[in-house]
């Protein structure tokens, strides 16, 4: 479903992505990890064209992200994205955050969009918060609303960019639980995260990045058993010792 081949990107002389190739099949959950500054976020932002690249090719559902004629807004509306800092729209209620994009982008009726919002808020256990503004919610609640907002567009795949990094520890699990249930329902997911517990539970594959390059792309058991690269072994030993 998502296919990146030999993608490279430079900021001036600095190479942020170095010949990255990665395929994510329908229904697959791929966790992308690595030290900070290794290009993980940039990599998944290339999947919906939020970041552009100078070399290589990215195909999503057969559509080339970097090609000139591509209708990027339309393609993006079919890929959900969840950000580290939630990025809910602060001037709209929770309900409107979820309903407005459906109305403006998918041309759904207001009633239809609000019904879908209600259904998703129910699922997140947040229906009582519908009329509140994002600033009135906790970080964990905001992130679940952000996931609901993305799901309301009925995306074919979801991209998560460090969805729990900005959360207080006691709120991480409520967000991870939602992501686990999504994974179990067969959602195609690319997740940038350091949550190795999450990776162990639901990931099909783990991708390890360092200095802009994909150093390791392995099935979960293989990765946690015996990572082939020294760099990945070192990284794992650092984050798993606690």
């Amino acid at each position, binding site marked *: 479903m998502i296919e990146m081949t030999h993608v490279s990107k430079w900021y001036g002389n600095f190479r942020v992505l170095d010949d990255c190739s990665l395929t994510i099949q329908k229904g697959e959950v791929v966790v992308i990890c690595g030290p900070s500054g290794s290009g993980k976020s940039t990599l998944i932002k290339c999947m*919906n064209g*939020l970041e552009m690249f100078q070399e290589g090719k990215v195909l999503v559902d057969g559509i080339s992200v970097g090609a000139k004629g591509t209708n990027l807004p339309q393609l*993006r*509306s079919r890929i959900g*994205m969840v950000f580290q800092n939630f*990025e809910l*729209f602060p*001037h709209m209620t929770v309900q409107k955050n979820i309903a407005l994009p459906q109305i*403006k982008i998918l041309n759904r009726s207001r009633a239809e969009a609000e019904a879908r919002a209600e259904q998703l808020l129910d699922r997140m256990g947040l229906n009582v918060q519908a009329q509140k503004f994002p600033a009135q919610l906790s970080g964990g609640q905001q992130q679940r609303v952000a996931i609901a907002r993305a799901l309301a567009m009925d995306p074919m795949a979801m991209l998560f960019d460090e969805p729990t990094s900005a959360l207080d520890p006691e709120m991480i699990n409520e967000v991870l639980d939602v992501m686990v249930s999504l994974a179990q329902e067969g959602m195609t997911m690319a997740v940038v995260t350091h949550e190795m517990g999450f990776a162990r539970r639901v990931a099909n594959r783990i991708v390890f990045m360092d200095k802009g390059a994909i150093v390791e792309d392995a099935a979960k058991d293989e990765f946690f058993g015996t990572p082939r690269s020294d760099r990945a072994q070192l990284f794992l030993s650092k984050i798993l010792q606690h």
Partner: protein
Amino acid sequence: MGFDFNVLVQHKELLLQGLMVSLQLTLIAIVGGMVLGTCLALMRMSSLSVVSVLAGSYVNFLRSLPLILVIFWFYILTPKIVGHAIDAYSSVLIAFILFEAAYYCEIIRAGISSVKRGQVQAGLAMGFTHLSMMRHVVLPQAFRNMLPVLLTQAIIMFQDTSIVYIVGVRDFLTTADVVANSTNRPIELYTVVAVTFLVICFTASRLVGRLQRRYAL
């Protein structure tokens, strides 16, 4: 020498008319200036360098001129360009809109830059086009952030309308001046003008504070 505030009552209607002209001028110039200013701000932030340089030159040019010069210049120049005389009111109105737009452009540009980059990314990632993302995500937040500055600019604008005196538009101050000369009561008339300006501007700035607290993000 005693004060005679009776002249005010006698010329009440004339003075009120003058005040209305001032308020109307302020309102139209604000709305016109903001619409044009928003367009200029979007142009200045455009990735097309021709467009942004054009808008930038306009803003820098007008901001380097004193308002009184722009009004005077426009008043004298416009008839030469359009080929026939235009009334002083239309002339100052256009001058005000063009002048204010340059200031509003900078205020609006700062407001737009104050919206976090992540909001832009989130809007685009949802599938909004660039324009509808600006319309639904960035501009509503930008306007909330710049509300205090916008309204302060409006208050300054209201005070600046008195400059139209130089081309003889019958605004509040000019009317008061005419009445003062004909009745020989300048102290009473100018005092009333001063108090009216004080009351309106003070009330408006209190209102700004309340709005700011209410709509702050």
